[in-house]
């Protein structure tokens, strides 16, 4: 069937159009998208065109919706409310035979196949997770980015006492919120120049610095690099104290300068963190039990028709923390 969808063309213009979506066969389900979230990685694709396998693309990998058609072998029934797993394992490699969560050839919904910035999206059953009754869709749609935050913080070996988060976009903010929940006695500092994003950091109780290059003399035992500006990782390592953990989360091609001696002498653990593995169900459960913790990151919601111009605004001058679209 033909459904309204955003179309990202090879010249990186995004328009509202239509695309053909097959009905579900096998274990596939057709999901009517109720809310989809704009991710920092979508902005990266919108700027660069990387990762897209077929043009025009329909991006969108943070999706909440309702199953409206189910294939004969589907694990879901019509009417089930689900959030989607953004990861598309190849299902063709040795690892996928054992556990596709760890597929080395992983691609993402919206890049290798049509995603959620459309009224409907078709996915295999393994890509959908049930949302408990009573959870609001606009809360549940945060599960995918929250799983990224969970995965990042899963790398910690102990409770941080002083944390620094560079960048308070959606992922930085969710990591901040999660730090507060897990380590309520830790102090958190945030570097974020954008006043709206900084306002949320302050609301959550952080000391806010305007720049990651000027966070003062304090040394942190956890530094999360979720900003991605040029030399952000250099700033992160500089702010890291003895035996600190530095988590590189931002999707960025901007280079950083790091003095190996700083890593060596500080015995710093520098870890690159990509997406998530098994954390999506935990993230759904966390939202189900305390949705109020996560709601403050949603700062704008638009219709599908309003979405392309809203995204263009975000590309020019990021203002939202989490922008949701309701196709």
């Amino acid at each position, binding site marked *: 069937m033909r459904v309204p969808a955003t179309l990202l063309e090879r010249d990186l213009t995004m328009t509202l159009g239509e695309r053909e979506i097959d009905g579900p066969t096998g274990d596939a389900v057709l999901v009517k998208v109720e809310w989809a979230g704009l991710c920092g990685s979508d902005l990266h694709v919108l700027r660069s065109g990387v990762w897209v396998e077929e043009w025009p693309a329909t991006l969108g990998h943070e999706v909440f919706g309702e199953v409206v058609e189910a294939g004969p072998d589907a694990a879901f029934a019509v009417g089930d409310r689900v959030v989607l797993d953004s990861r598309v394992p190849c299902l063709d490699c040795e690892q996928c035979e054992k556990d596709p969560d760890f597929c080395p050839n992983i691609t993402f919904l919206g890049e290798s196949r049509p995603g959620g910035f459309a009224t409907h999206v078709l996915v295999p059953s393994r890509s959908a997770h049930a949302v408990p009754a009573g959870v*609001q869709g606009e809360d549940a749609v945060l599960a995918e980015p929250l799983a990224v935050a969970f995965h990042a913080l899963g790398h910690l070996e102990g409770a941080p006492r002083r944390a620094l988060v560079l960048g308070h976009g959606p992922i930085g903010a969710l990591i901040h919120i999660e730090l507060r929940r897990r380590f309520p006695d830790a102090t958190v500092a945030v570097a974020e120049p954008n006043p709206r994003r900084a*306002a949320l950091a302050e609301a959550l109780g952080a000391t806010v610095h305007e720049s990651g290059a000027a966070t003062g003399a304090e040394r942190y035992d956890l530094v999360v690099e979720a900003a991605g500006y040029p030399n952000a990782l250099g700033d992160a390592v500089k702010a890291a104290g003895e035996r600190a953990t530095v988590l590189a989360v931002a999707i960025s091609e901007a280079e950083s300068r790091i003095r190996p001696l700083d890593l060596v002498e500080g015995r710093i653990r520098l870890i690159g963190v990509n997406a998530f593995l098994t954390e999506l169900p935990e993230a759904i459960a966390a939202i189900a039990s305390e949705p*109020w913790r996560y*709601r*403050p990151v949603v700062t704008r919601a638009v219709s599908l028709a309003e979405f392309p111009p809203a995204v263009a605004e975000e590309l020019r001058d990021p203002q939202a923390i989490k922008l949701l679209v309701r196709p």
Partner: protein
Amino acid sequence: MSQTASTDEVTVRPYSPGGAVSDEPSGKLSSNESALGPAPAVVRAVRDAVPDFHHYRTSEEFRAGLAEDLGVTPEQLLITNGSDESCYLVAFVHLGAGATVVTSDPPYRIDEIVSRINGAAVVPVPLKDGAHDLDRLAAEAQDAAIVWLPTPHNPSGIAVPPARLGPFLDRVPATCLVVLDEAYRPFLPPERRPDALELLRRHPNLLIQRSLSKSHGLAGFRVGYLIGSAAQIARLDAVRAPFNVNAAALVAAGAALRERGWSDYTVARVRDERARFEAFLDAGGFTYWPSDTNFVSFRPRDHEATVDALAKRGIAVRDGSDLGLDGWLRVTVGSAPRMLLVREALIEAGEG
């Protein structure tokens, strides 16, 4: 509309709280509650304090901290069970059969109700384009015991320009109390917030009522306060119940005042969404009152279709007929996703 009643034959249209049309909490846009709720640090403080709740707790400590924040003495403050309790106490102390009060029409209902319960006659002064008609309010105040003056006003959302308050108070006789209800004060931009304490220094008949329900997300805890002269406050303090604000509410309020960033963020989010909604109303040519609060009152063209389209999306708003605004709807500024649904509903109802 005005009526005199003796205490044994009071006729009061009782207050009916805003309802819900679904079990999705974010869809309840009928009572001007906060979309974000209390600060996470408030939740933590209250949870941690529960084991102490076998003790009675007075509001002394909270009052002292608040006095310092505000730059008044503790004796100038009364901590109340929701700011509405102020209305009950003020009316109880200052009204009786034969007394007259002045409100705008439509009023914030609680002030009207407490006045009638206490036997007073209510003189309603129609709003002018949603704004208080200060000239007429001052004229009617000459023989009145109280002028109830919410600013920004509910249900209009419109505030008195601060420069007009002084001259208004100059015209009200010293024998008439003016209760400035500032429940929505934090939603005003700072430069349009009245210098309430300066007004208080010059007008001992002024009482200032505030609330932690809206900007601090504590509506269900019920915490507000009243600022006045020490003499006025002492009279009201003498008649309140001993532990009028419960321990959980006091813990929540104490933590909430420390979390200034949270209320600032709550207000900023309301202002963003309100601006988007008012731009939508402008584009659709709706009649509405530009608001300085966390709600907007507007007049839909097809009332029933609009209410239905909202309800279909799990959204409850306040019907104007509850508020003295027949044909209007009052919508609380909710979360960004819910305000999108509100706009969507208006479009579906043929409104947008």
